[in-house]
């Protein structure tokens, strides 16, 4: 068993035992099983899948970091929303707002641009999760 903690600035989203967890890292999706080697990696927007008793749970992840030590997985991200909490409308709006912001590229400072780009990536990742599930 793995002990998984998912913490965002708003709250502790998840703190429990799981069988395995898949993380969207900068280098691609990786799956952590018990007895994984100690690892520190950075998370990018995507889907975070955790499995417990062959039941799957899907979360949308934002930017952040993950630290794996022995049988502990600590995930610190700025967004971690369970699939059912995602609201398509709100995400669409966030996406549009980010796109509008990006369109005014020349008026933005470097940070503002980076923030808007990050928001867009997060919105896109959430939408992907929402839509993919519906098709099945």
């Amino acid at each position, binding site marked *: 068993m793995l002990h998984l*903690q998912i913490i*965002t*600035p*708003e*709250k502790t989203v998840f703190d429990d035992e799981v069988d395995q967890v898949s993380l969207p*890292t900068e280098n691609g999706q990786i799956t952590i099983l018990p007895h994984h080697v100690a690892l*520190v990696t950075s998370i990018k927007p995507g889907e975070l899948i955790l499995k417990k008793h062959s039941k799957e749970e899907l979360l949308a992840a934002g930017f952040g970091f993950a630290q794996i030590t022995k049988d502990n997985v600590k995930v*610190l991200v700025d967004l971690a929303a369970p699939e059912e909490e995602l609201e398509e409308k709100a995400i669409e709006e966030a996406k549009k707002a980010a796109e509008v912001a990006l369109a005014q590229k020349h008026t933005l400072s470097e*940070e503002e641009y980076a923030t808007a780009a990050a928001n867009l990536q997060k919105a896109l990742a959430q939408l992907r999760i929402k839509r993919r599930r519906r098709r099945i």
Partner: protein
Amino acid sequence: MTQIREIKRRIKSIENTSKVTHAMELVSAAKMRKAQEKTVSSRPYTSALHQMIIELRPETHKNLHRLLKENSSPNQLVILITSDRGFVGGLNLNLAREAIKMTNKNTKFIVVGKKALSFAVKMGADVIAGFQSEEKPFIDLARTIAKMAVDAFTKAEVSGVYLIYSKFESTIKQVPTVQKLLPITLTGAEAGIETEEVPQMLFEPSADRIIERLLPHHVLTHIYQILLESKASEHSARMVAMKNATDAASDLVDDLTLTYNQARQESITKELLDIITAQAVFE
């Protein structure tokens, strides 16, 4: 008679004031609850991030990151965070006292909150930036401040960045706190981790890249957290101050009502006395 009317007028005015303070108390209580909740729920994230950095210590110290490296600039930067508005008891005063202790001619200031700004101006301090604490979302404010602090530090304009804010402990207790933000130090009790066997760790994509992202993020999160703490402290302090004011007002009203009744009774007795004396004369 004039005395009685005077007392009545005072009672009325105190009652009106207490109505205002009571309303402010209720408003602050509502804001306080929200701010406290936010502060407390974001603490795990901040401390987990800090913990992670401490555990990466062997790696960060291999080649010293620019946010860990000390420089020899004589200047220091103080980020002072107060409330925008008053009615918060001794909160801002305590912070100002801490700030005075830190200040010498080489101290530069970034101030957040109107009270901090007017304090710095009065001190004749070198203010490089001033913000109001409610002009934009905290995360944006934190981002701006973090960038300024990191820039000043990496350009070696300042050798240390300190935060002065009131740490929220409970509704009735807020502690004025001075914290060192930069260079990031992982010493003291936290250094105990050094003696433990540090397991070999993998880094993906690479240690440098992770640390490059992690440390600035830590600075940002730290500032964000203390902005939340300050807000929670402010509303708590205001709630308590207003509650005390309301209580004091009702005590005062009780006192004055007693005096009023005495004066009224006195005048009635005098009148009665007059009537009786007059009657006695006619008989």
